[in-house]
């Protein structure tokens, strides 16, 4: 667990931002998720600074973050006035300008940006706010080009790289078979094993593209056209990822 204690003043916001940038980088969040956490924590800290403590006697904010169960968890603790979220009305974000209130937007944004927001009060520790963000699996697509005759041995070699990518967290895999001239039944078995390996993982998708006619025929004869997502072109296959299960 990493921790940071700062005085509850506006000058501290920059330190908090740097602390959270470190957290989101080390948690491996993508740029968008990192920004969401950054903004949610900024809003939380701003509320403590502006409403938690009397302006003339600001106390501290204790921040901490850790990673657990695939989540990045950030907590903010303060000894200021007890915070009761029920007392803050949800902002009406549809009313016209004349009736629009600018208050309550920070708390509202936190709820929109994080997967969960939890307020607790402890007589000793004070207000404890816990913000949780799921760490998404990498969804980048990796393309592998296979070539030549795919028999037992050559397919195994080609597939070893794919297996390594799956183990490293890649969930979208495209096999480009444009230069494959022959596919043996043992080559087909190896493809089935990769499919099984990938589909066992949440969000896993395997797609194949650019099959030569004689290779496509092997899929048709064996009935495996049903088991694999086959695409005419690489572009078509890349567009299909994330659209539906494959």
């Amino acid at each position, binding site marked *: 667990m990493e921790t940071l204690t700062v005085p509850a003043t506006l000058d501290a*916001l920059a330190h908090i931002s740097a602390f959270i940038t470190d957290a989101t980088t080390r948690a491996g969040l993508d740029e968008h998720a990192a920004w969401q956490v950054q903004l949610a924590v900024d*809003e939380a800290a*701003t509320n403590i600074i502006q409403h938690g403590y009397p302006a003339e006697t600001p106390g501290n904010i204790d921040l901490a973050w850790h990673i657990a169960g695939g989540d990045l968890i950030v907590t903010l603790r303060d000894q200021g006035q007890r915070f009761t979220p029920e007392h803050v009305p949800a*902002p009406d974000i549809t009313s016209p*300008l004349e009736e629009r209130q*600018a208050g309550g937007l920070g708390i509202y944004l936190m709820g*929109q*940006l994080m997967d969960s927001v939890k307020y607790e009060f402890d007589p000793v520790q004070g207000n404890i706010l816990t913000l949780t963000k799921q760490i998404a699996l990498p969804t980048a697509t990796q393309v592998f080009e296979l070539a030549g005759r795919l028999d037992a041995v050559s397919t195994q070699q080609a597939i070893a790289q794919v297996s390594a990518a799956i183990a490293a967290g890649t969930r979208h895999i495209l096999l480009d078979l444009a230069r494959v001239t022959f596919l043996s039944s043992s080559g087909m078995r190896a493809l089935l094993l990769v499919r099984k390996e990938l589909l066992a993982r949440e969000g896993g998708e395997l797609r194949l593209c650019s099959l030569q006619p004689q290779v496509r025929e092997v899929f048709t004869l064996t009935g495996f056209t049903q088991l694999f997502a086959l695409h005419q072109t690489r572009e078509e296959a890349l567009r299909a990822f994330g659209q539906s299960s494959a």
Partner: protein
Amino acid sequence: MDVSHKKFNRVDLLTLEGRMDAASAPQLKQHIDALFEQGRYRIVLDLAKLDYIASPGLRVLIEARKRARDRKLTDIEGGDVRIANLPPRIKEVFDLTGFTSLFEIYNDTLDAVGSF
């Protein structure tokens, strides 16, 4: 956040650059208040180089537009605060908070200035 000012005949253009959070939002408020004090209520905010906005920044925007629109000027139209350019991150905050429908937003700075 940096705020730079360009004065046109009937309109003032404020260009914001960097982060607008609770620490920096008062800077924008000061600029806008100064213009209001000079009786200049037609303002374009260029957000093309604004990387980040948090709710204290939103508050300054909404209060500025309310005050500007309350002014009935002698010309055909009254005062207003209009926005030019909305980078993706800023647009996302605007969309989440329902601000997109609260402002006149232009994709081009000169269009925004010329809209008055």
